[in-house]
């Protein structure tokens, strides 16, 4: 990228964040996100834009399944090896630990926990989701490699549940990220969660769990919804 392009890009970014600010009443730029200058070893001054410089800002592309027997075989493998990200977002996460106990034992279904999103392909949104957590969820979700699946655990993720009138929790998860499987209840028991996994496996094997592509396809729409409620948006549009 030439320097001219870079400057243009930077000014666009700034204009965007300014536009955000114009819509709301406050300026949410944190001090650490403001433009800053550092002195290079040779004495020249380097301008740093912390919102742009450190991140790749490309948008996701659809990676369509190739279809055929190979895809079916691979889908079987994906279904039999579901690696769940260990990220409890709300009260429902208390239902996840029992799954590793002898009573429920999710390992026999090929489900296991993984500590890093880079190596997981399933993400459980467990219970209510506050706006603050949503931001982290979006980041984490986008960092997972495709194909990736979301299980929404509990009523709150469907319609807000008992928090439907809270100022800080969202009502409908699928407006912000695509959901493959809903597990209703408040709280659903671990059995219900296991059932959710089985359902997810069916979907994957049937080739219907392509929500990651849906996210890429309707990316702008999802982003608009996300940005509507996350007013201090201080990350790139897509987190690689």
């Amino acid at each position, binding site marked *: 990228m030439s320097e001219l392009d870079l400057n243009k890009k930077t000014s666009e970014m700034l204009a965007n964040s300014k536009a955000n600010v114009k819509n709301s009443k406050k300026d949410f730029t944190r001090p650490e996100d403001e433009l800053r200058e550092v002195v290079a070893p040779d004495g020249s001054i380097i301008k740093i834009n912390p919102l742009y410089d450190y991140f790749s800002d490309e948008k*996701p592309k659809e*990676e369509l399944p190739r279809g055929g027997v190979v895809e079916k075989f*691979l889908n079987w*493998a*994906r279904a*039999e*090896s579901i*690696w769940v990200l*260990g990220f409890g977002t709300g009260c429902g996460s208390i239902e996840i630990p029992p799954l590793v*106990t*002898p009573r429920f*034992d999710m*390992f*026999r279904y*090929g489900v*296991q926990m*993984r*500590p*890093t999103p*880079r*190596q997981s*392909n399933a993400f459980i949104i467990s219970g209510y989701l506050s706006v603050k957590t949503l931001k982290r969820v979006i980041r984490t979700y986008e960092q997972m*490699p*495709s*194909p990736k699946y979301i299980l929404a655990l509990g009523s709150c993720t469907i319609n807000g549940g008992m928090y439907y009138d809270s100022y800080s929790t969202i009502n409908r998860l699928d407006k912000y990220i695509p959901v493959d499987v809903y597990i209703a209840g408040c709280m659903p028991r671990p059995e219900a969660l296991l059932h959710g996994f089985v359902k997810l496996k069916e979907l994957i094997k049937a080739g219907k769990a392509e929500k*990651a592509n849906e996210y890429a396809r309707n990316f702008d729409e999802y982003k608009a919804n996300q940005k509507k409620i996350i007013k201090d948006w201080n990350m790139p549009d897509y987190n*690689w």
Partner: protein
Amino acid sequence: MNIYVKLAYTLLGLLIVINWGMLMGATMRKIGARMAGRHGIPFHQPWINLLKNFSTRTTITHGIMYYLGPVFRLSGGVGLFLFMPMVFTGAVDGPWTNFSFEGDLVLILYFQVFGMLGMALGAGEGGHPYSAMGIARGLAQHAAVELPLTLAIVSIAIQYDTLSIYKIVEAQQGSILNWVLFTNPFAAAAIILAMLGALGHSPFNLVKAPNEILIGPATEYEGTYLGFMMTAGAVIHVMEAVLFMNLVFGGANSWLELIVKSFLIYFWSVFVGMVFPRFKIEQSITWFFKVPFVLGVLAILMYSF
């Protein structure tokens, strides 16, 4: 032996080792699950995992060293296999001795680091702080493990007056009482303890330290890269076990013997890991400075006079 025939044997051996490594990993997890009263994963789970990892659709790269990390790791594993005589058939140039220079111990010990180096550099380029922490711990522990291990290996080298694994295995043939385990018990004890650290199970699993520093060096690796690393991990686990088998437990006369012995060796570390919680790095290092170190010194003193 014809080089092509040898190549064919080597490839076959590699295939066996990779698959045995994965099966062994699955079995260990199964055993762990049964100890906890669970069913645990199916035996074929590692292959599925591998397949799934190779079939991710999107992938990222942090740069050239990020690429080279898994490459170093896997070639380190495969190289370790190539330089190790696997099955003792009574001939120096036998079918399962690979390209091993009769299994030069110095070569093996130094080549172990090759894979680690790749891991270290690749994880470093990933830029994740936990990767670097994991690497720092891993290398430090490796250096600590080498203390009793080297003492014991030098003792064995004095005992048989050779640095060739092939000759060490040859000398242990005949009877079970010819094993280093019985002829040089101190060295064997030191190696058996050092093995725990080398195989990296709890309490010495602070390299990956799952959920403490995410997953250590591999934190940023996904998909195909991870698949490569898992393959390499399978090979390296078997090769570590085979190294100790050759050194202490009389080597193997057939693949079956190799499988049984390496399984038991590997099981030993899993068995200990089931009972003990994770060490901190300084605890881990000082642990090797205590009993294993003394055993190693005794082993050398026993044979140097």
